[in-house]
């Protein structure tokens, strides 16, 4: 049974009150967070208030929804009215939004209990959570390792049982990669299925909000709740593919699971073996494994870094110290104020990507970089379309390796960029992808596999993921941290 259903049952049966449950989560955060650094802002008052509202309903004998009273967390790039939202950047310190992100508005209206805001790479730029202004989030499986990034805080909190679930954002793998590192489930939905309103943009054409959870069932419940059209986001169509929960347990006999050989090139042996072993599990479940080539994948990484950085350079232009957030203390005129504010407020990785993005959009370089990348993006979309003529879902590693040790990512940015190789194609093509634990390396660090679906094909990939979870429950581990339900 998933964590969310379990908590729901506990609340409905009266095994514990929502206030008691929330209190135990807050207590565990206090114990675990100094080491995990998953939360950058804990909001106990708000959490207890929300919990009491749920208890009041329960006391009155009212029915409660599945997500009501379930303690959860939001990545710190999701706007929360009146609660500091910093993107883990110095430049947004002190910024309290005056509105809620649509996803939070939805969950709040369902009486979700938010425990606090979780750590992330600064502006979601990074693969280890270590570019965070507040220091990186650690891996609950082994705290000498990073939680991954950019949604490292959410993964660490969920893996460490100090949140039942959380919402992250995925621009080039930022949900799936930390989920893989921490041994939890992470769903990056189809571009346009979840509203981005209130998500502080990194790269607008790639960003998508999704759940990080302990189980596939939980991911399905949360996704079904947050995927809805939003008149404030014109790119959002909502859950076109329909609810995913009802079909989770469908038989997958005859389902065609594709493996692109390119996805297996260059990944570590233990990762490759774990993924191929998962393929065997699928065969045993009656699915058909289809191998094919997807040579265009070799362009995915440069295409991603050009497009993402170009959009970021524009999206991050607004942080000038005039209206909100950090502002330099000493300056001489407006121009100097803006320069100093940005120089002092942004970290190294963010500056690197702003510079890269500015460069690829500049006069004389636009055609050679940005335009070419856009053209290739179209080609990649078509290549995936063709791949899905041969299979229903694609099986691939989530990351070519397991969680880095502390400090590794920071020392070699280029090598770190390369670790995004398996996750970025999904964002470029706007497809849904879910990362599911599928094994451990020799040191016991989790390995993740991802199931990639057709556009708005969340139901199919979650169905496939759920069946795997049932067939291989031993791959879903627990950690020593947090709340025991």
């Amino acid at each position: 049974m998933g964590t969310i259903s379990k908590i729901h049952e506990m609340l409905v049966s009266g095994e514990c009150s929502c206030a008691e449950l929330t209190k135990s989560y807050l207590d565990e955060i206090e114990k675990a967070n100094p080491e995990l650094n998953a939360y950058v802002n804990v909001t106990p008052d708000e959490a207890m208030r929300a919990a009491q509202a749920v208890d009041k309903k329960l006391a009155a004998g009212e029915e409660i929804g599945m997500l009501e009273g379930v303690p959860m967390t939001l990545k710190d790039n999701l706007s929360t009215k009146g609660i500091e939202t910093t993107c883990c950047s110095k430049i947004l310190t002190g910024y309290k939004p005056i509105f809620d992100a649509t996803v939070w508005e939805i969950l709040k209206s369902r009486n979700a209990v938010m425990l606090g805001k979780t750590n992330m790479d600064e502006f979601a730029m990074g693969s280890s959570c270590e570019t965070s202004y507040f220091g990186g989030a650690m891996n609950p499986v082994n705290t000498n390792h990073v939680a991954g990034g950019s949604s490292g805080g959410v993964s660490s909190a969920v893996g460490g049982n100090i949140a039942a679930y959380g919402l992250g954002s995925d621009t080039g793998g930022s949900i799936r990669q930390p989920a893989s590192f921490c041994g939890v489930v992470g769903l990056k939905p189809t571009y346009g299925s979840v509203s981005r309103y209130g998500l502080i943009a990194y790269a607008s054409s790639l960003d998508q909000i999704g759940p990080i959870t302990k189980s596939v069932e939980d991911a399905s419940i949360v996704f079904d709740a947050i995927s809805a059209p939003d008149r404030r986001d014109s790119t959002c169509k909502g859950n076109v593919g329909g609810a995913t929960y009802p079909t989770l347990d469908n038989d997958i006999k005859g389902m065609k699971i594709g493996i692109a050989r390119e996805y297996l090139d260059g990944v570590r042996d233990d990762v490759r073996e774990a993924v191929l072993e998962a393929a065997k599990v699928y065969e045993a479940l009656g699915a058909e494994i289809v191998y094919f080539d997807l040579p265009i994948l070799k362009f995915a990484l440069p295409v991603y870094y050009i497009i993402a950085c170009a959009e970021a350079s524009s999206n991050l232009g607004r942080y000038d110290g005039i209206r909100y957030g950090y502002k330099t203390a000493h300056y001489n005129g407006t121009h100097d104020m803006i320069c100093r504010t940005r120089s002092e407020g942004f970290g190294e990785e963010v500056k690197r990507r702003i510079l890269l993005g500015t460069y690829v959009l500049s006069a004389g370089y636009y055609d050679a970089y940005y335009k070419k990348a856009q053209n290739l993006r179209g080609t990649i979309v078509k290549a995936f379309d063709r791949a899905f003529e041969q299979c229903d879902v694609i099986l691939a590693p989530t990351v070519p390796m397991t969680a880095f040790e502390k400090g590794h990512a920071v020392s070699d940015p280029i090598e770190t960029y390369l670790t995004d190789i398996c996750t970025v194609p999904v964002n470029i093509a706007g497809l849904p992808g879910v990362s599911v634990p599928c094994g451990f390396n020799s040191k016991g660090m989790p390995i993740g596999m991802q199931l990639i679906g057709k556009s708005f094909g969340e139901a199919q990939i979650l169905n496939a993921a759920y069946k795997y979870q049932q067939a291989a429950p031993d791959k879903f581990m627990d950690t020593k941290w947090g709340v025991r339900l």
Partner: protein
Amino acid sequence: MKYELVSGFETHIELSTRTKIFCNCTTQFGGEPNTHCCPVCIGLPGTLPVLNREVVRYAIKAGLAVHGEIAEIAKMDRKNYCYPDLSKAYQISQLYAPLIIGGYVELSNGRRIRLHHIHIEEDAGKLIHQHGDTYVDYNRGGVPLIEIVSEPDIRSIDEAKEYVERLQQVMRYIGISDCKMQEGSMRCDVNISVRPEGSEKFGTRTEIKNMNSIANIAKAMEYEYDRQVDLIESGGKVIQETLRYDDATGTTSPMRSKEDAHDYRYFRDPDLVTINVPREEVERLRAELPELPMDKCRRYVNELEIPEKDALLLTKYRRISEYFDEAIKGVKSPKTVSNFIIGQMFRRTETESDKELFELATSPAQLNELVRLLDSGKIRNNLAKSTLEKMLDSGKGALEFISESDMGGVDENALLELCRKAIEGNPKAVEDYKNGKEKAIKSLVGNVMKNSRGKADAMAAEAKIKELIG
């Protein structure tokens, strides 16, 4: 050597939609600073723009009014630059796929100033410098604009003035903007170069930014033309630069290079979806357009036999032409209506803004009634004129001032009697006329008119008197 002026205009026009281009804030001019704002138009992190469809409709109407081609697919782009009045550090505009392509503005000399394209975009906020500090007001941020980009087809300052006036006129006619240059709802960037007369090659151009009155446009162009000609004549070279016009000194000067040297790094705005413009929608909007001023003017001249000079005056403002159209319904001579409007009514609407509003006590229907009385011969011109004055003063109808007896006219016998009386009572005038003083007849006719209280037909009276005197 004689030099020819070559000029092209970039004209920004604020659309008078009720709400802003990407949010629901009001577009009203003024207001306490930062009160017409929301998270979207001040670009708070995480907000997203949603295109106001009304803006697209207004822009399509503008495009149709200047004979442009409406694109089937249009896209929004980001124009990146950093300035405190631009809350997102980029302006959402159109570069790669604008909404309207081509078109032209026809001038009274028959020349057509071709348009390159028209695109939609958002306005920026405003900086206010006060007590040595700089404040920013985002009320104007996100107000919808169209930018009309002309080809370098303008060849004289008079053409430039007319081009702007024509745009102003047509945009007001179709009701998409008030085009008030003094309030900034219409602003022009003027590109200008000179070349030896007869030369095919364009000279190097300069751009004068943000002109806010037609008078200043003319003055700035005059100055800049002379400056460029002098420069070339003295062996110098015009350099391509952006200038500002100083109203106080009447001169242009270069903007600081920092303001000028922009690389806008345009790219498609990923937050906004492609704009699809169905052809039925374009036709629906075309059908909504009123008759345009040039077409109206032509019709007045050709069908109603109004002199061109008068037709131009009648069509300059939409309200006046509508008033005229209403007042001529069923009358024999539209020219008479035109004369009343341009004569007596224009005297009561002296300023341009009075003419723009054209609010008079007398309705078109009331004027129509008066002219019909004239048409039917029931009253004479003099009476009509004096009656119109009273109508304009009071707002009352013609019949309030004209009695039954006034309208009877004068029958044949009565006229004969009146003429006889005039002859008998004015032997001196009769004598003068007989001695060849043609004009003397006028005083006799005047006598008839006076005694008939203006009801007699002056022409008939004159003929009758001549007949009687022999």
